[in-house]
């Protein structure tokens, strides 16, 4: 195991960095640096001024509230609960997510309905604690809680507004379809 210290041929990085007289004179290197920045400046200026509506800008900046970046399917936004067709949550209040959540952000009160099925009478998710780790999604046996791609509207003026109840968390299955498919794919059998 491992290469003993004598055998390793490291790469010396400082070899040709000694400055020539030319480079010592500040000014030429300064000009070189300035050409770099000026190049960026000019390119952006042109790209900025000549930019036509709808065309892709060559500037990297995203004009956020108007324009949004494309999120990869892996993106973990806020956790949301998935709704069944009947408008009820899929969650069976098994409590796994509550258990695994490192931030203890989830608190569930389980109850049984008339059919004898467990359901969460109250499902509180404290967004002011949630660290978007995705564990809840990973452990949930029912695909009932998923990390949606939502990230907007989370800023609040009051900390109490960040406490989300079940009603605030429920999303239709369609709206999180992509995510459900994604988790099915990544936690598929073939990966184990």
């Amino acid at each position, binding site marked *: 195991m491992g290469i003993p210290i004598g055998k390793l041929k490291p790469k010396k990085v400082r070899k040709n960095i000694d400055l020539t007289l030319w480079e010592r004179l500040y000014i030429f290197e300064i000009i070189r640096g300035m050409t770099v920045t000026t190049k960026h400046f000019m390119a952006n200026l042109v790209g900025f001024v000549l930019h036509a509506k709808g065309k892709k800008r060559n500037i990297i900046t995203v004009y956020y509230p108007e324009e949004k970046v494309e999120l990869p399917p892996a993106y973990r936004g806020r956790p949301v609960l998935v709704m069944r067709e009947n408008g009820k949550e899929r969650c069976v209040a098994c409590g796994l997510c509550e258990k695994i959540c490192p931030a203890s952000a989830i608190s569930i009160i389980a109850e049984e309905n008339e059919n004898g099925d467990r359901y969460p009478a109250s499902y509180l998710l404290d967004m002011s604690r949630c660290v*978007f780790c995705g564990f809840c999604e990973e452990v949930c046996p029912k695909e009932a809680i998923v990390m949606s791609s939502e990230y907007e509207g989370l800023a609040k*003026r009051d900390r109490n507004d960040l406490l989300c109840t079940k009603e605030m968390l429920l999303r239709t299955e369609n709206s999180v379809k992509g995510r459900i498919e994604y988790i099915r794919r990544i936690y598929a059998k073939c990966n184990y």
Partner: protein
Amino acid sequence: MIDTLKRKGGCSSCGGVDDDSRLLGGSVILTKLEAINNWGRKYSFFQYPFVTACCGMEFMSVCGPKYDLDRFGAALPRFSPRQADLLMVVGTISHKQAPILVKVYNQMAEPKWVFAFGVCAVSGGFYDNYATVQGIDTLIPVDIYVPGCPPRPEMVIDGLIKLQQKVMESRWSDYPKGASPVSNDK
């Protein structure tokens, strides 16, 4: 647990209300002036980046080329609290850090706003232990809470826009705010 969460978030309500300005509050000119003033404040946040932890990475990104907080006129970091308007509390505040945060907040010149960036600043996040402060609103009044660990730059910008709205709604009499300085007893 729910009880503690229901704690009144921050004390950003106005403190020393000036009666004269109340009386004048109705006059049209004053409201106009107020609006202009708020407009100026809203687009000119000089921020004091109180960056301590991982959220700082995302904070760099927010200021960086891709998200560019400067578009909102809020990218100019001033490391002197006298010149800053917006205290960005970015990251975990430990008990060791708490007096410093309070001091910096106290030393900021009026009017000032506080932005809790990331769940650690909002509530302590998942560091619920002996070392961390459970939310900076236990220390100083907070104007806007942005959860996320760390929040996406978009969430921060969202928060900033919310804060701008809040500034727009503010009145002369809201400043200086806070009836008394935030205490810093050790």
